[in-house]
């Protein structure tokens, strides 16, 4: 096998999410609901990366991400890069950016928080991006990436 590399096939239309920290690759798969998706999805994990050591990469055929989805990716994988593919070419690429305020994407880890008791939309203020540190707008509880669960 020396000198040979495993090649992931290109997509004609869609999105490539690159530079996901390797451990969080499948979390990104989960939040984008890719398990039930019926177009081409390629998931690479523990790929070599100069920046991250090991990285994850996801190619999604025929799908473009919403702002909410990009924000969700930013929370889980703050170093991720999004490539938008058209006719096999990279039409646009950008690095994800964690918003200053996160609206209704994350659940509060405090079971006694009003957002869990009354099922109202959540809101968090981002104190630090990488690693993530956020404060619940309502109960003021501090949370980090390990406690984050999506709504």
């Amino acid at each position, binding site marked *: 096998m020396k000198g040979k590399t495993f090649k992931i096939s290109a997509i004609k239309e869609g999105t490539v999410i690159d530079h996901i920290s390797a451990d969080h690759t499948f979390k990104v798969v989960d939040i984008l609901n890719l398990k039930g998706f019926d177009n081409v999805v390629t998931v690479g994990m523990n790929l070599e990366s100069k920046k991250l050591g090991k990285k994850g990469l996801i190619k999604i055929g025929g799908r473009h991400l919403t702002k909410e989805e990009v924000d969700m990716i930013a929370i889980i994988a703050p170093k991720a890069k999004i490539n938008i593919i058209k006719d096999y070419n990279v039409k646009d690429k950008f690095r994800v950016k964690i918003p200053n305020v996160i609206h209704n994407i994350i659940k509060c880890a405090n079971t*006694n*928080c*009003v957002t869990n008791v*009354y099922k109202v939309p959540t809101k968090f203020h981002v104190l630090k991006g990488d690693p993530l540190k956020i404060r619940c707008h*309502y*109960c003021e*509880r501090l949370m980090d990436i390990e406690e984050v669960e999506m709504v």
Partner: protein
Amino acid sequence: MDFKNRDIISIRDFSKDEILHILETSKKIESKPDPELLKNKIMASLFFEPSTRTRMSFESAMRRLGGNVIGFDDPNTTSLKKGETLWDTIKMAESYSDVIVIRSPIEGASRLAAEAAKVPVINAGDGANQHPTQTLLDLYTILKEKKTLENLNVGFLGDLKYGRAVHSLAIALSHFNARMFFISPKALKMPDSYLEELEQKGIWYREEEDLFKVSRELDILYATRIQKERFPDPLEYKKYAGVYRLDRKLLDHIKPGLRILHPLPRVDEIHPELDDTKHAVYFEQAKNGIPVRQTILALVLGG
């Protein structure tokens, strides 16, 4: 500085100057009370959990300024029992009143109430989270006793894990360069998130289990009750109840100017034999709740 229509939810919402403005206004209101200041204004007092001191103090503050009070202190007698949401209860209360005071066991309930209401909302305690008017009256008491809030050595004693009064006061005192001593059993220590916040603000602190190792350094000792209601396991509560009991022995280990505060109610953390000493200011502290709450009501109602 305009506080008209402002919600009072968390001590984190206030700058140092705003805190000082409230304390200075409290001094004016205490020295020259105006019994007609809030005439024809109505305060809705919504207490979703029991409270004696805070509820009575708010009601007294409102009435002594000529205002009226409506509300409840037993949620079992309200529509909440019928499944009404907090949002709907607040929408109902705002149409009957000029200001809403809310106490809830649910954390963040006051912030949500403030978003629902067009009239100003004052948080009178939301679970283990915030109790900003308690913090302001604590600061007012310290200021009256020590003539300054700057550079004090402040000891916090007892349940530092669940005690919201301690959490809020520590955050507030971080504006004033306090040196903080957190005295508690390990299991009830100050949460790491608060310690991190203080570190980021460059505040010096020390954690200690033995009060007498640090008591001689203190200007203020803020004692708290080990709160039975915050422990899921009664056996766990019994292990820590009564672990600190302040009595006359303390007097051999303190600076002459030490002042002891306690948000009350006390169980057995402070022996009544200390009540008559110059160090005990907890009843004065409870009394200070009136001018401070009068000030807050007057400021948010634009009085």
